[in-house]
């Protein structure tokens, strides 16, 4: 699993990479793999204020739709226009070229509500252990 040391994570499988007060947001390998081939990203408008864990956008694959929540509060200052024509970019490079938005982070303290790379890794392992309803039992 592709977990990047200096990124912060949410339990909803978003990542944020904060540099100079600007957070780049995307979805994790776990999320892109669960969605499958992404067919559409509903890109939000720039200059919109979002709250931490508020819905930012949604991402669609053939048989599912998934809401993406903002890891932190702030103002959307950029969206990844490449995703409009090539939503599969998220599948190919979810942690890098397939970023979704950039946010001017308004409250750095909120990062304490997020998971570190290590915590997210353990979280994923715990998910693997109790993989939902197991009907074999």
């Amino acid at each position, binding site marked *: 699993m592709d977990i990047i040391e200096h990124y912060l994570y949410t339990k909803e499988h978003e990542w944020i990479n904060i540099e100079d007060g600007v957070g780049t947001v995307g979805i994790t390998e776990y999320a892109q793999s669960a969605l499958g081939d992404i067919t559409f990203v509903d890109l939000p408008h720039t200059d919109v204020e979002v709250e931490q864990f508020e819905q930012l956008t949604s991402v*669609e694959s053939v048989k599912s739709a998934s809401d993406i929540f903002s890891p932190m509060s702030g103002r959307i200052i950029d969206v990844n226009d490449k995703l409009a024509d090539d939503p599969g970019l998220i599948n190919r490079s979810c942690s890098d070229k397939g970023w979704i938005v950039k946010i001017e982070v308004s409250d750095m303290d909120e990062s304490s509500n997020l998971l570190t790379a290590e915590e997210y890794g353990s979280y994923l392992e715990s998910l693997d252990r109790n993989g939902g309803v*197991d009907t074999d039992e």
Partner: protein
Amino acid sequence: MKLIFEQSVRGRQGFKLPDSDVPVTAVIAGKYLRQAELLLPEVSELDVVRHFTRLSRLNFSLDANFYPLGSCTMKYNPKFTEKAAAMPGFADLHPLLPQLKGGERYVQGALEVLYDTERWLSEITGMKAFTLQPLAGAHGELTGIMLMAAYHKARGNKKKHIIVPDSAHGTNPASAAVAGYQIISVASDKKGGIDIEKLKAVLTVETAGLMMTCPDTHGVFNSSIGEISRLVHAVDGLMYYDGANLNATLGRCRPGDVGFDLVHLNLHKTFGTPHGGGGPGAGPVGVMGKLEKFLPVSRVVKRPDGLFYLDYGHPDSIGYIASFYGNFAIILRAYAYMLLLGGDGLKETSDHAVLNANYLMHRLKNNYPVAFDRICMHECLFSATKHAARGVHAIDIAKFLIDQGIHPPTVYFPLTVKEAIMVEPTETESRETLDFFVDAMIRADALARTDPAAFHDFPRTMPISRPDETRAAREMNVNFFASRA
């Protein structure tokens, strides 16, 4: 296969219209005329008939194939109901006739069909009254939620949300949301029913009601239904019965007797009307007395002298929810079906639907783990998680079945069970057909053990193999002309 547009040859025409027998007395001013060429195909009648006949052969259908789609109830559609629906006295009847002064005199037969159907559906479900207007199941749900809203408004209740079990059809939360309610999902317990403790935790004075199927989409009849009803009624919530699975309990249990306040039915599920490849359907809604005054107008009424008329005078009604009186030709087929079977015959359909489902479940449970190991109702629910661990997913088993001439069961629904395979054989299938299906499923299980990779290119015998659905969704070529512009 070529599209009909690709067979077009300038100058051909598939239908002979009459020459005009009237003098031309006017022309339409140029500014109102279409400029764009009308790009319909130019083909002969034989071209059309052959094209659509060939297309039809690319379909699996109930008439040709076993079609055990769980929750969809693909039971046989008796042929005589088609004959009934085609009778000119019904098929040619204009819907505005009864709205003319004295016009009900000219549609007495049609109104009698509606009146009798309403009465019989009321008796079957234990409801007080019915409207036949909703044009499909989901439309019935929306109508039902609007009735609930009208009820709460009249009582001054401040209701905000509707509770929906996690095993529900997607239409339930969608309908409630369209009508303006928030949705609270409640989890199922280990036996497949609603988890009563979790239900209690979300029930508040703001609960407008609970929507549920009974039996539910796990194929389980919830024995606690009486207690659930009491809990919901205690907060003045309403019990909404999604009639998708009424076909399991005809003559065995009526929603009105176990606490439901309103129901919608899918006539194509319980009353043998055809599915049409995705409609038209019919979704009548029945209510208990406390909701009757809110029913949509018009209402069909029988006068003391035996004549029927349409009554629009209900001040508390939610109003028009359809243009007319429902999908009449579908209602007529269901009426014919009920006339033929009668009360005993209807009960018999449920008995055999449940017998067939339990038989299938027992024959397959050693090969496919059942989601809930107990007696099932009209459908049984398996999980292919063990197969999935070998790389053979529910969808792969589905595609294997297509090559056996069997329409796949419902897969990946309900959402509560991983790798769900939901089988509803219906009462109209013979034991030989069920055995044929069981044998195919057992062969699939064996193949999954010995050669899981073989599944990836099923089906192999169809006109096409698996389509690239991602490409379809990304390119959105949904119009012949646009995709070639």
